[in-house]
């Protein structure tokens, strides 16, 4: 396999973008990435999108987006793995360059979620769970993560305030990210008093409904050294699956797929998790970030709540988690999320992250997951 690097990144402003369509969002982010990379020729593209069919009634997405980007007839594939569609698209692009099949690959992620009502969006997101044995009983995604939270709180004593501290921390970080959907601070008290969605999760525990896109350009490391911006090497890639029905899991308070994906990615990179300078992880709900920090091995099992309370995961802490603001503040256009995590890590490793820059960052990790952890992707990045 060849070494592969990211040489260009692009991301649109995220939010409720009434005036922008699915195709326009994608093209905007892709052109930013192409310009950032300074490349003309693209050999192939991979697009992560969870549910353009349910959100906008549009399938056959890869060819459509290649057309609107002016790149027909290059090969283009659309990849779906629920909320980890972007992370999986990135892995497919990485494999395509590493294998030698293509030299320059554009990986994009996109989701246009506000073309349907909130109720229809909740249904579309719910298809990432087991429709016949979870959805049938009226379960929602906040409901599934709420049940993980109850199990975690019951076993480890994780507190309501600790959940709120995750949201407050990520909004602090997001207030420094001009592309974030919600670039403002939120207090622990405000989270505690916000309206209940699925007990114990409140609206400010939840990532929002977002329109947005992100894109990156990959090429072999050797060629990347001649690119206009400093190359960022993809040092490790890990991917694992688990049951999508939560009830079938051995442990309801643990994310085994994330642990397995992290182990594989770190082994490939020849690194330990504590070698990483920053982490972009899948905080679709506050409890998710707490459980991910445990599964990545940043803290022992059951200590994720304590980690945020002690400031371990803050921007200036030992393990900065979600300097971008995470899904919580930056937004969560599901198919774009995994690609945007890469965009953030690349900006951090280039020293281009502005106010939220982690000083001297040389290595970073992304973790993206689908559903309640039925799929997980972890990637490791190193400067140079």
């Amino acid at each position, binding site marked *: 396999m060849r070494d592969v690097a990211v040489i260009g990144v692009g991301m649109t402003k995220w939010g409720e973008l009434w005036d922008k369509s699915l195709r326009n969002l994608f093209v905007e982010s892709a052109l930013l990435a192409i310009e950032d990379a300074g490349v003309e020729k693209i050999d192939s593209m991979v697009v992560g999108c969870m549910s353009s069919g349910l959100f906008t009634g549009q399938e056959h997405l890869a060819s459509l987006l290649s057309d609107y980007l002016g790149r027909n007839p290059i090969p283009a594939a659309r990849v779906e793995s629920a909320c980890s569609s972007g992370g999986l698209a990135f892995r497919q692009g990485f494999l395509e360059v590493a294998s030698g099949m293509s030299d320059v690959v554009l990986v994009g992620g996109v989701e246009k979620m506000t073309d349907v009502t909130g*109720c229809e969006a909740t249904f579309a997101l719910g298809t990432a769970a087991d429709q*016949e044995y979870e959805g049938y009983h009226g379960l929602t995604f906040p409901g599934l993560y709420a049940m993980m939270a109850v199990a975690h709180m019951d076993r480890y004593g994780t507190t309501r305030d600790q959940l709120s501290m995750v949201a407050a921390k990520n909004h602090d970080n997001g207030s420094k990210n001009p592309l974030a959907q919600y670039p403002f601070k939120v207090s622990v008290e405000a989270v505690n008093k916000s309206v209940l969605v699925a007990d114990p999760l409140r609206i400010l525990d939840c990532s929002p409904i977002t329109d947005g896109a992100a894109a990156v350009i990959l090429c072999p490391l050797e060629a990347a050294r001649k690119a206009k911006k400093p190359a960022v090497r993809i040092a490790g890639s890990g991917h694992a699956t688990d049951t999508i029905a939560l*009830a079938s899991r051995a442990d309801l308070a643990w994310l085994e797929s994330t642990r397995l994906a992290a182990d594989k990615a770190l082994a490939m990179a020849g690194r330990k998790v504590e070698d990483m300078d920053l982490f972009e992880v899948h905080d679709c709900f506050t409890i998710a970030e707490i459980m991910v920090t445990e599964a990545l091995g940043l803290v022992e099992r059951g200590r994720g709540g304590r980690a945020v309370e002690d400031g371990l995961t803050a921007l200036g802490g030992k393990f900065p988690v979600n300097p971008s603001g995470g899904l919580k503040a930056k937004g969560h256009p599901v198919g774009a999320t995994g690609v945007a995590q890469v965009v953030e890590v690349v900006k951090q490793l280039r020293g281009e992250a502005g106010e939220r820059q982690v000083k001297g960052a040389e290595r970073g990790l992304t973790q993206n997951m689908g559903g309640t952890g039925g799929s997980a992707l972890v990637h490791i990045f190193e400067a140079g």
Partner: protein
Amino acid sequence: MPTPSRYWREIPQRYRLEGEKCKGCGRIAFPPRPVCPGCGGREFEAVKLAESGRLLTYTVIRVAPEGYEDQSPYAVGIAELDDGARLTAQVVDCDFADLKVGLRVRLEFRKIHEEGEAGVIHYGYKFVPA
């Protein structure tokens, strides 16, 4: 709206709690599946699930998906049945304040929801405090 066959084919599980027990490792799969998730075995015997168990976790859904809005708020939980099988279902006839991990529950046959005014009426199991 799905065709009635989608609903009809799940009736053995939803009405009669039919699962399958692996002849290799004894694990109960619900719903039945061709390959045992425990040992990879492919031979099973049909079993009816135990009708009681205890809650492993729960929540109260306050923002319901399409088709369940008129029931909200409602409780949902995951229970481990006395035979080791695990199920997700609503928890009914119960004050939300009484929900707790470890609560003893039994399964009852109830209406789940209706597909609009002219569609199929969906039935199945729900948990009630034992």
